């Protein structure tokens, strides 16, 4: 499975393994449920 893209200014590239691990550690998921605060 490919890793998501990251954008820094105009450069868009695939995340490195380390960047992807860091993103996952924040609780990020590709397929999110509705997480808007109205559901809180």
């Amino acid at each position, binding site marked *: 499975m490919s890793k998501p893209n990251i*954008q820094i200014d105009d450069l868009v590239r695939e995340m490195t393994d380390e960047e992807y691990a860091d993103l996952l550690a924040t609780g990020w998921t590709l397929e*999110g449920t509705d*997480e808007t605060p109205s559901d809180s």
Partner: protein
Amino acid sequence: MPVPDFSPGEVLTAAAMDSIGLWLVKTQTVGTTVSSVTVTGAFSADYDNYLITYNGIAGSANTVLRLTLGSTSSQYYYGFIYQSLGSATINGLQGQNQASWFYAVPSTTNETAGSIELWNPFLTKRTSVRSNHTEFVTTGAVGQFVGYLNNTTSYTAFTLTPNAGTITNGTIRVYGYRN
């Protein structure tokens, strides 16, 4: 010379230009299906305070865009007062020593537009933030987000990261308030 109604061919004096309060620092276009967008060179010694606008950012999910400065991932404090459309109830959320300003910017599958104000991001002082949170969802939340970053780090960049999924398209503009 009535500012800002300049006449064609008119010589603009330093005094006239110095009276302009808002200057465009940077325009950033958001790419396709990105999991974060970092805007570098946004803050500098030129301005103490900033207005950031965003238009047309479409999320793959209804979520939020976590706002962070530089590489800092702690000490974000905030309060978020909002109302869910269709309900008369006023709700509040708060965060202390969080990893981001979590509710500063909404992200919905409908393109989102709004603004963020930052005070002191480049100065070696605490940074405060205010934003309007307007979800383009018929039963979505609308509200005001305020907070601060509890450190005195100087920042030049900020990042928006969807809490889930990716974002596509849109334009981010950074303006500096003239000191």
